[in-house]
């Protein structure tokens, strides 16, 4: 019994690792298998993945996991209590349990990261692929605009945007997205330039496909994986920027349990009640560290050229 499963796994491994795949399915499965093997060999990347998955689970099950309310505390009995077995991370100036607030705050962090990725990556993808495929004037104009945005100071510009739009989590997301698409455009353009030389693009052109169809159906899907890697690597930066805006009072507004805003609140008590500021900062640190580790691992697995 044991021998047969082992033998079967061996053959499956051989089938996947075959350098002469017999079908498209075998080839793509083999590539995915290979990427998985590289990824799982990187223990830190696995750790990053586990933390990110834990973040997702915590965000989804926040109501079940949080031991206390994230919004209402008891001002008479539980104000500014140090960490204890009842309140693992202590309580804040409103008597609210900090652990519960961090658990609920994970939803906001996840919301910001996903929304920025969903907004910024497609903009960069479209600009980059269109510029790369069209060439000529379109390319020159689009890339000049990208260069201009790339040379801007991102945090300051996000600050100015939020100042004009008004504080709030949605506006912070828009501001971060507006300032973070240019690297994706650069990346997508570079990929497009190599893809458009290939024979299969020439074949699709001969079949009479429209430029839009070629860009959307035949070029963009191939750029997606490298953009995803880049987005994952950028997510730590997005989290830090969002937290910075929150810290300055420009992101999520109180009483929302946003981690950056919680640090700003804890700043008032940092000398005596250090845990109010320490706990949410540690949460930001752990989550962005996880995204950095995961991004590094993904890059090594999916894009062996870029790895050093």
């Amino acid at each position, binding site marked *: 019994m044991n021998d047969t499963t082992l033998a079967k796994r061996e053959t499956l491994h051989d089938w996947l690792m075959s350098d002469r795949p017999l079908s498209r399915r075998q080839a793509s499965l083999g590539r995915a298998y290979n990427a998985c093997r590289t990824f799982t060999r990187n223990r830190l990347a696995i750790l990053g993945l586990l933390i990110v998955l834990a973040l997702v689970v915590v965000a989804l099950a926040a109501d079940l996991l949080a031991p206390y309310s994230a919004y209402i505390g008891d001002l008479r009995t539980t104000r500014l209590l140090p960490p204890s077995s009842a309140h693992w991370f202590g309580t804040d100036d409103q008597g609210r349990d900090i652990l519960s607030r961090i658990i609920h705050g994970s939803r906001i962090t996840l919301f910001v990261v996903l929304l920025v990725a969903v907004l910024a990556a497609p903009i960069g993808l479209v600009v980059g692929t269109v510029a790369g495929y069209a060439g000529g004037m379109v390319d020159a104009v689009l890339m*000049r*605009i990208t*260069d*201009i*945005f790339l*040379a*801007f*100071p*991102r*945090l*300051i*510009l996000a*600050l*100015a*945007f939020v*100042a*004009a*739009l008004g504080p709030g989590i949605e506006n912070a997301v828009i501001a971060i997205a507006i300032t973070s698409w240019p690297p994706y455009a650069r990346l997508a353009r570079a990929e497009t330039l190599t893809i458009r030389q290939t024979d299969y693009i020439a074949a699709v052109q001969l079949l009479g496909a429209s430029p839009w169809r070629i860009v959307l159906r035949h070029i963009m899907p191939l750029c997606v994986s490298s953009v995803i890697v880049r987005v994952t690597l950028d997510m*730590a*930066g997005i989290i*830090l920027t969002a*937290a*910075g805006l929150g*810290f*300055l*009072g*420009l992101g999520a507004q109180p009483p929302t349990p946003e981690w*950056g805003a919680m*640090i700003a609140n*804890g*700043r008032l008590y*940092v*000398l005596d009640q*250090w845990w109010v*500021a*320490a706990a*949410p*900062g540690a949460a*930001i*640190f752990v989550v*962005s*560290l996880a995204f*950095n*580790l995961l991004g590094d691992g993904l890059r090594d697995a999916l894009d062996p050229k870029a790895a*050093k």
Partner: protein
Amino acid sequence: MVILLTYLGLLAVTFFIGRVIPVDPVLAIVGDRAPAHVIARVREELGLNKPLYQQFYIYLGKVLQGDFGTSVLTSNPVMQDIRRAFPATLELASLGILIGAGLGVPLGVWAAVRRGGLVDQVVRVTGLVGYSVPIFWLGLMALLVFYARLGWVSGPGRIDVSYEFTLVPVSGLLLLDTVMAGEWEAFANALSHLILPASLLGYFSLAYISRMTRSFMLNELAQEYVIAARAKGLSEVRIIWRHALRNAMVPLVTVIALSYAGLLEGSVLTETVFAWPGLGLYITNSLQNADMNAVLGGTIVVGSIFIGLNLLSDVLYKLLDPRTRVR
């Protein structure tokens, strides 16, 4: 050409933020109960009845003359405020980059030479932490430990109040001013205020610079001229520091210039934590009081420096790398 376009782009974006996004700047000034003729007059005074491109043209002219309007908060011209706040930021970011480059480059070289060794691991961890930790939180925790608990450094602010009015500002850089005045006690005080925020900024640039130095050096050490130098019998020290590092310096200068620009910008959060009266604190204070003239003025100044350093790094690259010179 690119720099001009970039600068024009920056001004266009700030113009757009300041003039187009708010619903109606006139209402913001006179309130919604003002009679129609007052609204019309204010609109005309502000030049808002002109077409948008003309407004932008007027705006350009003003900004190029250094006229960012008046700050609502301080009722000074914004340019005057910025001129007063800028030296504080310059002092902080400059010391930061000195620490970052001064430690980061040797660490990076060391990590590359002893690849996989202890220093290499330290550089790797330093980089990871530097990319992942919120700077304002680390600043708060550093204040808690080194100021409140250990008492090694002075707290928020640039200098103790007792020294503040005895100094005649010449350059606005306190370290320089106190030395020139021969006030050593004040110098020590200013340094004890400066060292913590500067080390913090230094750490963040160190994380980036050491990582880049390492990868540039690994690249250079694999080149054939290094083998040739070894074959010639040159000492390892000479090969690393005189030959390889000199070549790695070319891209490294760009990295250092860019992280200097990043520090000038990144000081917004650090200055808020340390109550450092620089440009960043000025911008955030203005933000909290909805003082748009000051915010946009600060944005333009920081943006211009940022773009300028970007350009400078390009120029330096061309100067240092003979291959990019046009023959």
